[in-house]
C-alpha cells in the first residue's frame, strides 16, 4: 500500500508541475503540430505506408523532446529531497506512468492532426489502439530510462539522449509500423497477434530491467 501511495504522490507531483508550467506542455504540443503541418505541406497528400511511417516518426521526435527534460527540470535540491522520501522503484514507476500517459496524449493528438490534414487511414481501430498502447508504453519506458541516464552526463543532453534512445527504440518502432500497416489494410497478416505478443514481451523485458537498474542511477 505504501508503495502505491508513493507512486501516486510522484504521479500527482508530475501532473501538478506540468499544469503549473504550461509553457513546456504547450511547447511540445506546438512542436508536434508544427511537425505534422510540415509533413502535410511537404507531401500535400499522403497515404499508405508513408502515412504510417511519418506518423510514428513524428511521435518519436516529439516524444524524445518531451521526455528528455523529465530528470533535468527540477533542481538538485528537490531531487535530494525525493531521495529521502521515496525509493528508486517508486520514483521510476511514477515517472514511467506519467510519461506513458503524456506520450499517449501526444500520440493521440498527432494521430488527430494527421487525420485532420491528411485524412484518416486507419480501418481496424481496436488493433491500432492496442498496438499503439503497447508500443507507446515501450517507447516511454526507454525514453524515461535514457533520460535518467543522460541527465547524469554533463552538458549537451539532447544529443546524448537521441544517440542512445533512438537505436533502442527501433525494434518497437518497426513493430508499431507493421501493426499500423495491418490496421490500415495495407498488409494482410494473419500472424499480427504474434507481433502484439512480441511488443508485450519487449515491454516486460524493458520494465524488469529498468526496475533493477534504475537503483544505481538514483544513488546520486
Amino acid at each position, binding site marked *: 500500500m505504501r508503495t502505491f501511495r508513493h507512486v501516486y504522490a510522484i504521479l500527482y507531483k508530475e501532473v501538478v508541475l506540468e499544469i503549473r508550467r504550461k509553457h513546456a506542455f504547450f511547447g511540445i504540443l506546438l512542436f508536434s503540430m508544427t511537425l505534422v503541418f510540415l509533413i502535410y505541406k511537404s507531401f500535400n497528400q499522403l497515404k499508405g505506408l508513408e502515412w504510417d511511417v511519418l506518423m510514428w516518426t513524428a511521435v518519436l521526435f516529439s516524444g524524445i523532446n518531451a521526455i528528455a527534460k523529465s530528470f533535468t527540470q527540477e533542481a538538485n535540491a528537490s531531487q535530494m529531497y525525493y531521495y529521502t522520501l521515496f525509493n528508486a522503484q517508486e520514483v521510476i514507476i511514477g515517472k514511467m506512468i506519467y510519461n506513458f500517459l503524456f506520450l499517449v496524449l501526444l500520440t493521440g493528438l498527432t494521430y488527430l492532426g494527421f487525420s485532420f490534414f491528411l485524412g484518416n487511414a486507419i480501418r481496424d481501430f481496436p488493433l491500432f489502439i492496442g498496438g499503439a498502447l503497447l508500443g507507446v508504453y515501450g517507447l516511454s519506458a526507454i525514453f524515461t530510462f535514457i533520460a535518467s541516464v543522460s541527465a547524469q552526463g554533463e552538458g549537451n543532453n539532447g544529443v546524448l539522449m537521441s544517440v542512445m534512445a533512438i537505436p533502442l527504440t527501433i525494434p518497437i518502432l518497426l513493430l508499431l509500423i507493421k501493426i499500423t500497416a495491418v490496421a490500415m489494410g495495407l498488409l494482410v497478416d494473419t500472424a499480427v497477434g504474434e507481433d502484439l505478443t512480441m511488443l508485450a514481451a519487449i515491454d516486460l*523485458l524493458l520494465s524488469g530491467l529498468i526496475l533493477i537498474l534504475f537503483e544505481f542511477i538514483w544513488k546520486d
Partner: protein
Amino acid sequence: MEGFTDEPGVDLVKPEGIRFPYRSILNETIRNTFFHVALWMAMFSLYLVGLYHAILYLRTSRKDHDLWSEAYNKAGILFGIMGIATGSLWARYTWGSWWTNDIKLNMATIAMFIYFGYVILRSSFTDEEKKARVSAVFSIFAFVALIPLVFVIPRLTDSLHPGNGGNPALGGEDLDHTLRLFFYPSIIALFLIGCWLAQLKFRLLKLSDRVLKNR
C-alpha cells in the same frame, strides 16, 4: 541451385580430404565462414565478458571491473566493424550487392549504433565514479535490448541471410565436417585475439590512469 557435390574447383582445393559444399552461389567464398561467422560469434562472446564485468562493477564498485568492461566492449565494437566489412564483401559475391535491405544486416547495424552510443556516453563524463556507474548501467541495458534485436526479430521475418526465415545456417548441408575442422578453432582463436586486444586496452587504460593521478 546445384545440389551437394564433392567436386570442388580442380586445383583450388588441393589438400587431401578437405572438402566443402560446392554450391553455385557460394563456390570458394565459403571460406568466409572462418572470418565472418566466427567474427560475429567472437564479438558476441566479447560483449558477454563486457557485460559480466559491468555487472561485477555494479556489485563491487571496483574500478578495474569498469576498465575491463570498457576494454571488452571496445574490442567487441572492433570485431563488429570487421564482421560487417567481411559480411558486406560476402554479400557482394553471393547476393550481388554490398548491402541488402535484409533484416539481419540492418538489425546488426542498429546493434553497432547502440554500442557507439555507449562510447559517446563514456566520453561525456568527467567524474570517474559516475562515468563508471552510469556506463555500466547503460551497457547492461543495451545488451539486453540487443537480444530481441539480433536473435528474435530476424527469425520472425523473411530474410536472405542464413539462419533466418527458414534458411538453414550451419546445418547439415551447409557445413562439411572438414570445414568444421577450421571453423570452430577459428571462433576460439578470434575470441582469444579479442581477449588479447582487450587486455592491451585494459593495461593502457590503467597506465594512463596512473599517469594522470601522479601528475
